[in-house]
């Protein structure tokens, strides 16, 4: 288990190797990235086994007083900020935490990354920058794994920004397309706004605690060294970073545009791993959030609920298959945040894992559709199951799972969230959460039925099924999307459900609230039946409904005018301010302060150079006049 730090190292090593050797290696070196992540995946099982076998007595391991779970902590010296031993110097360490949260995330990231990289072999075949694609993928995997292992805020922040830059590079992978370029910049800048808040939060904690170590921060919070006000502010600042990364309202605008990247990238980075980093961060520093009765968690819950509700309505009217999935991702991230805000730690991480598998599957399915038809507009699709049966089956499996159809994994994890919300928050939250659950089933039904069912269109008959390298990973993800939910049960024997492994302070057995479970089941099944009747059978017409809420439809279709609002702010506020600063810089700083002295010296030089004529007689004249002047001077001196 002490070798867990090796997991990201493989991929870190692979990235530069592919860049340097990509030209000479077969397949542009893509196999290096796949081997590296496969090694990471293998090592994950070893770490997992080691962790299950470890106990409070194992070296470096103890049951943390702050989280209540078994936590193994390995660290080594990194460097001293300031002279070692001197006053004010800070010793920084490299360190990794291996606790249930990390183990779960390691499993998710290595598995999905491995699947997506294998899938990309088929999807990206023939791309001119095939090697570069795999190099950035490897770097991303390494950074993401470092992020989940990090034991201090500094290392976490470094990894956090590294995944951000990888996301930027991969969104803008086809940078010949202006839209991709713009989307990459948008993603980078929007998440960076949140990251600034996160950095301030980290520095605030450092100021209060004098250390970047998370354990020191937890200790300071529980001992009262960090007061209630500071703790809440620090938690909210960290949450700003999480909001940016996890595309929470009002920072959600970058994620739909990020779909300009290659689809496997959307599956890995913008569905299963990087975007859940925000949820992971909140879970990782949960002792800070939940301290002092969890004032900060209420903000988390409200933001999560707004995000979930808003994104699911947009997903319902979007016509681009990938964008439907993107808004669905935002909505589910909102649900995870809502769950964390409702003290549903286990439920949030459970849903994170279940959603990660299912959403990666859905994106890979969308990529398969795109590969086969070169089309993403669902209005132009229909009946694709006849030409792409495997894709259709697996996509439907993912859609049903995320939609919350019973016994598939999404049902169980969503149910846990609803349960946590019901137990800990105001009744208004559970009503809106149920509405979100219904909407999420509804848009999944729409995407699935409109794309794959009904009559096959003429122009889609040429579509073909994808190669095995793409279907294989989808099938493996499909298995998990179907059965992963069963880890939530308390199976006969000693296993007490995921709540006994992944928990905060108190282990939770499996629990199931019958009325809530049946209600959410009715909503999910009802949504799919309704979707079937609307989109396939045309039994239920939307016209009456549309007419009644007529004014609202354009608002939703325009994504609540968020982009327009931001554009207005950028044009009218940011750019005006920037222009003012720019003018100040140009006139005062540049012209006056920097060029001013230089210009005076220059002008003086021009004036002074005129005496250097180059003519011999003018120098001679100077000598003569000088001699005469000196003579007169001396004469006057001797006379007086």
């Amino acid at each position: 288990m002490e070798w867990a730090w090796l997991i990201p190292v493989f991929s870190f090593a692979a990235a530069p190797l592919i860049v340097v050797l990509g030209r000479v290696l077969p397949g542009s070196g893509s196999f290096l990235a796949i081997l590296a992540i496969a090694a990471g995946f293998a090592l994950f099982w070893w770490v997992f086994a080691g962790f299950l076998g470890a106990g409070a007595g194992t070296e470096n391991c103890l049951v943390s007083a702050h989280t209540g779970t078994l936590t193994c902590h390995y660290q080594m010296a990194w460097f001293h900020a300031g002279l070692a031993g001197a006053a004010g110097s800070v010793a920084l360490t490299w360190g990794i935490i291996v606790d249930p949260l990390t183990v779960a995330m390691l499993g998710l990231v290595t598995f999905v990354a491995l699947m997506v990289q294998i899938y990309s072999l088929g999807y990206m075949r023939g791309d001119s920058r095939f090697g570069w694609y795999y190099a950035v993928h490897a770097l991303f995997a390494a950074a993401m794994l470092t992020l989940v292992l990090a034991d201090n805020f500094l290392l976490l922040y470094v990894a956090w920004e590294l995944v951000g830059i990888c996301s930027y590079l991969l969104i803008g992978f086809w940078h010949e397309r202006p839209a991709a370029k713009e989307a990459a910049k948008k993603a980078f800048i929007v998440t960076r706004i949140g990251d600034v808040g996160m950095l301030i939060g980290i520095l605030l904690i450092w100021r209060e605690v004098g250390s970047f170590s998370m354990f020191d921060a937890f200790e300071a919070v529980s001992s009262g060294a960090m007061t209630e006000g500071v703790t809440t502010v620090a938690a909210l600042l960290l949450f700003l970073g999480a909001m940016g990364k996890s595309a929470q309202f009002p920072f959600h605008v970058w994620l739909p545009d990020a779909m300009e990247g290659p689809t496997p990238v959307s599956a890995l980075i913008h569905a299963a791993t990087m975007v859940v980093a925000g949820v992971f961060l909140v879970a990782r520093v949960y002792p800070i959030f939940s301290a002092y009765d969890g004032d900060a968690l209420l903000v988390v819950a409200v933001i999560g609920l707004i995000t979930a509700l808003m994104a699911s309505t947009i997903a319902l009217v979007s016509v681009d298959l990938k964008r439907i999935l993107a808004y669905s991702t935002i909505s589910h991230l909102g649900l995870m945040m809502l769950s964390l805000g409702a003290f549903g730690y286990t439920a949030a991480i459970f849903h994170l894992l279940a959603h990660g598998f299912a959403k990666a599957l859905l994106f890979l399915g969308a990529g398969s559709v795109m590969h086969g038809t070169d089309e993403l507009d669902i209005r132009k699709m229909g009946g694709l199951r006849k030409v792409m049966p495997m894709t259709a089956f697996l996509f439907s499996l993912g859609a049903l799972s995320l939609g919350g159809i019973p016994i598939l994994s999404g049902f169980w994890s969503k149910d846990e969230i609803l349960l946590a919300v019901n137990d800990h928050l105001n009744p208004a939250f559970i009503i809106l959460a149920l509405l979100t659950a219904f909407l999420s089933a509804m848009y999944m039904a729409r995407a699935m039925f409109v794309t794959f069912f009904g009559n096959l269109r003429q122009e889609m008959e040429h579509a073909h099924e994808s190669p095995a390298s793409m279907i294989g990973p989808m099938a493996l993800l499909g298995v998990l999307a179907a059965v992963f939910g069963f880890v939530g049960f308390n199976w006969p024997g000693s296993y007490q459900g995921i709540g006994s492994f992944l928990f905060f302070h108190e282990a939770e057995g499996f629990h199931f609230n019958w009325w809530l479970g049946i209600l959410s089941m009715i909503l999910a099944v009802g949504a799919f039946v309704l979707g079937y009747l609307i989109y396939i059978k045309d039994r239920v017409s939307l016209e009456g409904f549309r007419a009644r809420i007529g004014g609202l439809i354009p608002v939703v279709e325009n994504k609540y005018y968020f982009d327009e609002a931001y554009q207005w702010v950028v044009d009218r506020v940011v750019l005006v301010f920037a222009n003012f600063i720019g003018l100040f810089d140009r006139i005062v700083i540049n012209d006056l302060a920097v060029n001013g002295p230089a210009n005076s010296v220059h002008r003086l030089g021009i004036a002074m150079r005129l005496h250097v004529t180059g003519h011999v007689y003018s120098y001679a004249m100077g000598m003569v006049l000088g001699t005469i002047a000196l003579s007169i001077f001396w004469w006057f001196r001797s006379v007086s």
Partner: protein
Amino acid sequence: MVDLVYFQLLSAALFVIGMYGVLARRSAVLIVMSIELMLNAVNINLIAAASHLGYRSVGEAFTNFDGQIIAIFVITVAAAELGLALAIILRIYRNRGSVNVDEVDLMKW
């Protein structure tokens, strides 16, 4: 015996003529000749002063040859300098086809 001041007036006149030549002439050769004129003005001054100071009174023998010796040095150095100057002028002429000092003005700015 002629009074010293006349020699000095002659020397000053020669010197000023030479100086005028240096300042006003355009030809490098004439400038060098003017310099020679100035040097010779100085020589006259030196020898006049030396011969004047050399006689303490009429009929006495020379006791002091300093001025004459310096004058011989000046003549020697002037000859050497002239050789150098003419060589430089020759090179300028080869390079530029002219010895007009107005045209030799690269050493500026």
